[in-house]
């Protein structure tokens, strides 16, 4: 066969291929669109994040020491380095905790960075979201002028020109005006406000420095080493290191999105496989004729491979264009969620790559249909007019599936840049497909074997068993009750509804189980999308609801006021006018760093510290990061703790240096015991004190309260905290407030004591809502792509089924059923697929939540039954809607055409 002739044959065959060819192309196009959209979105976001690393780092080197801020004296190190000619500029910034009332009248906590501009920013101007040509020095030029991060602007509901009062400890309240909003420069949600140092007096004393930015003369690496030696507890980062960290983060992010896109392509590829299968079944006589004329399998592989290439080219082009369109939506969602200002840049390279990917993916998924088509036995087919396409041999089938899996792995490895990840993706997907397909086959078989009930008494007995199951699940696993309730309804329909009314149900169940293999594949593809969406959304929604409920209803220690030690009385006095206060406890707090433990310098332990304690999840570095002093003489006592050893503190300890410490310190490497002494030094001065351990305590997770986040871990008498903290010690008053008065009382207290920092759980609710809300948006957009691929496969399956069941539809019509009735059968059949997918998704979500609750969160995360019902309804409705679109035309077939002796 000449090339021209072959090309003509290929193009005309595809043209004649009609719906199946179109469906095959559509499926791959949807998958390609997913990959392209995610690639463009991730590239745009990544470019924004790593475009100005030096500015984000603040200079050639940044030094951060939030836990133990640098004193004014510590800054001499930088002055010396400047004199020595090793650095050409430096600037130090202080960090203050502050609050302001947001547009929803909630108190929003955030960080204020107090800077001297110029020389700040040393690393170059940060990118301004608004005004786009903003400069820090200009934006901070007048008293009260501030610049805020995008995330904080969102939290406050503020924009350029917004005015509000900022409160901080020891201050008198600073009226600020927003003059600039900064772009985010990383994935973390920075809630920061930048204030000019000379105008920050109203915010209180900013005498310690949490960040120092440096521009070096020589290579930054050696100076970074010097600074690490000088400040061992600080984090020192060069621009190169910042870039590496950003790239690692961006790489993971891009890889994750590519992985999602490949999953969508894999699911969509199954649709293509189905469609091409159908295409070749319709052409079986033609293929048999070609073989009868002497065409060998190799020639047919080339012809059909050529068809696949053309389909892939079409799918690649359509997918690339569609992907470019979808990328605008995804990029917007990602940018909103990450508080980034991005400019969408569509690079032609991924678009061209998408065309190649389309061809590659179509060829891969065409392997099975092509091999199967060329296995036709022409004699049988040409003589009998049917048969001849029986698929013989499981080994051949499995071999071909393995081949397709390996080819897709190779494709995925190219896209992901990681063979291991590609193998994990394909192997995981195959395993999941195998398990779910088996499960579906089982469900369908059971459904077919069970219904309809042959005798009324037996049917009623089964109904009673199902009702008992409903009662049990409603009590114990509420979401699963939705699934059992569905089974009860279906069974009741089969049992009580007259036979002519339940015919559609009967036809649906029988049709599904008759085409078990394809139904299972469609179900699994659809399920993947529904499950991905259901899991991500329900986990996020459940978490949000749980956290919100826990925080909103917490009536214990839900409001905290922090102030200089001299302001404690003012806070208590002001709190008497609050309507919802049930109780209050005032403590004196000194922020400390450990000097020695039982006579051994703390630095000895520094290299051996675990970053996180496995049992209590308490950062061991922080177990000595401050003293909480109780007024023991007045009967004030530590609460909500359990003694692991020793005794608690009492009035007899008043005026003494007896302390309680976290039981973590009993374990290696500290191995402290009762009677040992600990020397602590204040973070903002050289004052220190030695505490005598009289007890070790454990704080159970369940008994932790909002207030416990603000009280440091070394518990002692007030006099001990005063001795170390001096005038820098802070008063913390922890209130228990009626939740219904919380927001009002918090705002009232903040206004009454502007020099205090008032924080309440309502603020956390607002932050949790914002962060999780944005996370939900991103998850929804990303999982929608997978669901989109599943949707394409369902549409594809319905379209093919309509072609294959043309005669059946015509027959229903010939005996008097109307289009509407036949369409009803199809809708019910596919709604059943959706319901099954929804039910299994609910099951999957329940299992996932149980696992997350047990292993990740260590607390029960509930699964709202309403969400379970929503998933069921959504999956059922979507499947039925797709079926409606795909079947509406085909059910209009004229019976006379379909029933002729084809």
């Amino acid at each position, binding site marked *: 066969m000449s090339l021209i002739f072959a090309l003509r044959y290929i193009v005309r065959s595809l043209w004649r291929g009609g719906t199946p060819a179109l469906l095959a192309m559509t499926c791959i196009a949807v998958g390609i669109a997913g990959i392209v959209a995610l690639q463009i979105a991730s590239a745009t976001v990544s470019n924004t994040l790593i475009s100005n690393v030096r500015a984000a780092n603040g200079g050639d080197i940044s030094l951060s020491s939030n836990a133990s801020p640098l004193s004014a004296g510590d800054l001499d190190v930088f002055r010396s380095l400047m004199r020595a000619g090793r650095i050409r500029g430096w600037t130090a910034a202080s960090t203050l905790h502050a609050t302001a009332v947001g547009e929803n009248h909630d108190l929003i906590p955030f960080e204020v960075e107090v800077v001297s501009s110029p020389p700040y920013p040393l690393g170059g101007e940060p990118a301004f979201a608004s005004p786009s040509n903003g400069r820090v020095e200009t934006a901070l030029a007048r008293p009260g002028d501030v610049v805020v991060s995008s995330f904080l602007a969102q939290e406050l509901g503020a924009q350029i020109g917004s005015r509000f009062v900022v409160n901080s400890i020891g201050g008198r309240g600073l009226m600020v005006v927003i003059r600039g909003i900064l772009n985010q420069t990383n994935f973390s949600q920075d809630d920061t406000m930048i204030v000019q140092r000379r105008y920050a007096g109203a915010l209180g004393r900013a005498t310690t420095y949490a960040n120092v930015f440096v521009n070096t003369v020589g290579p930054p690496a050696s100076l970074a080493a010097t600074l690490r030696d000088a400040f061992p507890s600080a984090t020192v980062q060069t621009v190169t290191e910042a870039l590496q960290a950003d790239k690692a983060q961006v790489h993971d992010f891009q890889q994750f999105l590519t992985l999602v896109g490949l999953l969508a392509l894999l699911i969509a590829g199954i649709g293509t496989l189905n469609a091409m299968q159908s295409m070749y079944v319709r052409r079986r006589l033609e293929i048999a004729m070609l073989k009868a004329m002497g065409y060998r399998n190799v020639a047919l592989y080339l012809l059909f491979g050529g068809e696949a290439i053309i389909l892939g080219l079409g799918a690649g082009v359509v997918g690339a264009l569609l992907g470019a369109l979808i990328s605008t939506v995804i990029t917007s969602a990602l940018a909103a969620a990450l508080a980034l200002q991005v400019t969408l840049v569509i690079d032609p390279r991924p678009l061209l790559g998408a065309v190649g990917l389309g061809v590659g993916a179509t060829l891969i998924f065409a392997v099975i249909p092509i091999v199967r088509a060329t296995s036709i036995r022409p004699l049988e087919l040409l003589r009998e007019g049917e048969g001849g396409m029986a698929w013989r041999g499981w080994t051949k089938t499995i071999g071909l599936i393995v081949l397709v899996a390996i080819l897709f792995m190779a494709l995925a490895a190219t896209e992901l840049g990681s063979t291991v990840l590609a193998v994990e993706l394909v192997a995981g997907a195959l395993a999941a497909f195998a398990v779910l397909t088996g499960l579906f086959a089982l469900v369908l078989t059971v459904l077919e074997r069970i219904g309809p009930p042959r005798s009324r008494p037996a049917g009623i007995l089964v109904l009673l068993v199902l009702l008992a199951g409903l009662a049990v699940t409603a009590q114990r696993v509420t979401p699963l009750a939705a699934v059992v309730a569905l089974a009860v309804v279906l069974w009741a329909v089969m049992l009580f509804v007259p*036979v002519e009314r339940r015919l559609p149900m009967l036809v649906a169940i029988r049709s599904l189980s008759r085409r078990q293999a394809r139904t299972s594949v469609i179900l699994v593809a659809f399920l993947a999308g529904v499950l991905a969406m259901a899991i991500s959304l329900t986990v996020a929604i459940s978490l949000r609801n749980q956290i919100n409920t826990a925080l909103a209803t917490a009536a214990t220690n839900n409001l905290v006021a922090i102030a200089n030690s001299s302001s404690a009385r003012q806070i208590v006095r002001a709190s008497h006018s609050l309507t919802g206060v049930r109780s209050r406890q005032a403590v004196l707090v000194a922020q400390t760093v450990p000097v020695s433990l039982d006579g051994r310098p703390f630095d000895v332990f520094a290299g051996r510290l675990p970053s996180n304690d496995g049992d209590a999840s308490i950062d061991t570095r922080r177990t000595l990061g401050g003293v909480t002093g109780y007024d023991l003489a007045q009967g004030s006592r530590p609460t909500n703790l359990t003694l692991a050893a020793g005794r608690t503190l009492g009035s007899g300890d008043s005026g003494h240096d007896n302390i309680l410490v976290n039981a973590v310190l009993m374990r290696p490497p500290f191995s402290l015991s009762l009677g040992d002494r600990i020397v602590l030094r204040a973070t903002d001065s050289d004052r220190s004190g030695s505490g005598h351990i009289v007890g070790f305590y454990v704080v159970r997770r369940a008994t932790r309260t909002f207030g416990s986040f603000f009280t440091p871990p070394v518990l002692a008498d007030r006099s001990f905290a005063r001795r170390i903290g001096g005038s820098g010690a802070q008063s913390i008053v922890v209130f228990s407030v009626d939740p219904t008065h919380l927001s009002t009382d918090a705002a009232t207290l903040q206004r009454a004591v502007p020099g205090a920092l008032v924080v309440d759980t309502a603020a956390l609710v607002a932050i949790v809502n914002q962060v999780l809300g944005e996370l939900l948006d991103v998850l929804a957009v990303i999982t929608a792509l997978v669901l989109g691929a599943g949707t394409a496969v369902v549409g594809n399956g319905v379209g093919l089924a309509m072609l294959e069941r043309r005669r059946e539809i015509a027959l229903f019509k010939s005996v008097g059923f109307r289009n509407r009735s036949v369409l009803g059968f199809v809708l019910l059949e596919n709604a059943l697929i959706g319901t099954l997918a929804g039910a299994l998704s609910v099951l999957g979500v329940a299992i996932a939540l149980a696992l997350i609750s047990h292993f990740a969160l260590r607390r029960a995360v509930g699964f709202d039954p309403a969400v379970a019902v929503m998933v069921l309804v959504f999956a059922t409705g979507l499947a039925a809607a797709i079926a409606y679109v795909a079947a509406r035309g085909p059910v209009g077939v004229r019976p006379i055409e379909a029933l002729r002796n084809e």
Partner: protein
Amino acid sequence: MTEPTLSVRDVIKELPLGSERISILGGVSFDLQAGEMVALMGPSGSGKSTLLGIVAGLDRPTSGDVILDGLEISRLPERRLAAFRASHVGMVFQAYNLIPTLTALENVQLPLFVTNHNGHHAEHAQHVLETVGLGHRLHHRPSQLSGGEQQRVAVARALVSAPPLLIADEPTGNLDSESGAALMELLSSLRAELGLTILLATHNDAVAARANRVLRLRDGKLAGP
């Protein structure tokens, strides 16, 4: 003379083919009296199946009238036509056309669900199946039945709503001679017992020989007997 069960008057059927129209039926007229069995013969492409489709209400003529049981059906709206088909016409096809997912009994019940037939569907359908000799195959699916049995299920389905007219398009075309003869025997006896009017298309002279008369269709027109 009594009113004919079926009266076909000047039926013309044209179909578009590209920019032209081709004539499938060119003015066909005939009557069928109650209880009559008429064979429709003619070469492939002569318009037999098209004529049967029009008579059955599955297709509409370009012009002309089809009066079945006193009702002009060629211009009935689709909704009424569907209901009319279910109650007034039984159809048997060469390829049986049973619903593969339903049992023999359920297949036979199908038209009853449309007509909202009063009484017990299952019992009635079972009775009809017993009439065609398949009382022992009630719960078998089409794939579990022989070709002859499938065609008898198709006949039972066509008769279950007691239509005045049975239309059969090459009913023995897919059967061996023995099964074909048995089926024709069944149709003859049903006609005799139930007074059924039957119009069947066939290429088979032996089948046509069992009819009361034969209509010969050639190039869309009826030729002489």
